[in-house]
């Protein structure tokens, strides 16, 4: 039984490995004029997965800081950042990707918002998270695909 699990997870790691090999590494993302034009993975993002990542406290936890009325079933939305309602009307896809990848480079070097696909981390990063980005490349694309659905106009 244990062997099976190990084998299965090895296969899983392999597939993740392949996906990662195709992804642009966090130090190689091309950001120009606060735009990241190219997809990080070349694989279209999944908006439903992106919505879950926004909610999940261990992943995006975007609701910690942003109100988003498209997720009314979640009780607590923070007010540290601007509401995300209609965010796709205000920003292009490339701009939103840049904000997600590294908000400090894209918008505001002093921002409290975490840079989700960057290795410019704070001091004393906990061992478990050392050398790791908060979200994976595909997860960024998923969140982005979801943000692109937030239109009011």
């Amino acid at each position, binding site marked *: 039984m244990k062997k099976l699990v190990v084998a299965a997870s090895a296969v899983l790691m392999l597939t993740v490995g392949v996906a990662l090999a195709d992804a642009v590494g966090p130090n190689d993302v091309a950001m120009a004029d606060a735009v990241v034009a190219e997809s990080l993975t070349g694989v279209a993002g999944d908006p439903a997965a992106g919505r879950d990542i926004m909610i999940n406290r261990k992943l995006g936890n975007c609701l910690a800081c942003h109100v988003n009325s498209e997720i009314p079933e979640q009780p607590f939305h*923070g007010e540290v950042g601007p509401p995300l309602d209609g965010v796709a009307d205000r920003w292009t896809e490339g701009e939103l990707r840049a904000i997600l990848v590294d908000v400090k480079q894209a918008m505001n070097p002093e921002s409290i918002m975490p840079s989700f696909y960057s290795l410019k981390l704070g001091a004393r990063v906990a061992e478990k998270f050392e050398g790791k980005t908060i979200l994976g490349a595909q997860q960024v694309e998923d969140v982005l695909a979801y943000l692109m659905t937030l239109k009011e106009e």
Partner: protein
Amino acid sequence: MIKVGGIFAAVGIAAMLASLVSPALADPDNNQLIIEGELIVTDVAAPDSSPLDHIYSGWRFRSPETQSLQMDDFENPGFVAVDAAAETWETADGSEGKSCASCHEDVSSLAGLRAELPKWDEATNKPATMENLINRCRTDRMGAEAWGWEQKEMVNMTALISLQSRGMPVNIQTDGPMAEWMEKGKDLYYTRVGQLNMSCSNCHEDNYGNQIRSDHLSQGQINGFPVYRLKWAGLGSIHRRFKGCMENIRATPFKRGSDEFIALEAYVASRGAGLAVETPSVRN
């Protein structure tokens, strides 16, 4: 929200007028902390060195339910610890056969101490916290074993001794030999740490009053410590809280009792100068 017409108009206008003078929803509330008939000051003008105009106790950011637990010593769950410590105070321990009371008599003789800690300590040539001072009595004067920083007996005792200063304004030395430690603490306060890459100031200076998901951010003051946290189901030290905040931003925390946390404690205490000691506070 404000309805116009009939009775709602009157209420609406009253609410509008009130909102001109009272802070918006995001700000600390206007409730008053009265314990045993005594008003405890929960906001004052900030000390000169502060980047803020006005400082507030963490109590002002808690829900009315949590607030009320602190308004009655019989309801305040922190008093179980205080009572336990009162017994320890009288109990002899160690090779010298002494209790705290053997030297200090009534614990009220230590009124005022909490308000000025951490303070410069010639013996060790660095600032001493209450935990440091308690352990010195235990090892050097009682011949007893030092307590661990977060050991129950220690946290309980810091609560009992701090309670003697309840209502007194925090008044900590920042100059002379303390100046260097204040600088060090300040550096730590503004240094971004962890994978989430945030500093204490990002949350407690730039965003106090805002909700961060289900938490209403306070200024991160320490005038109520040790606090009884419902989440901990018990009392916790200042350094435990610092550690928790660092872990939340995915940083490796400093150790309780480390020079770093002592420096941070001293600096954070100085940011709260003038606030009344509130130990034992109740938090969610």
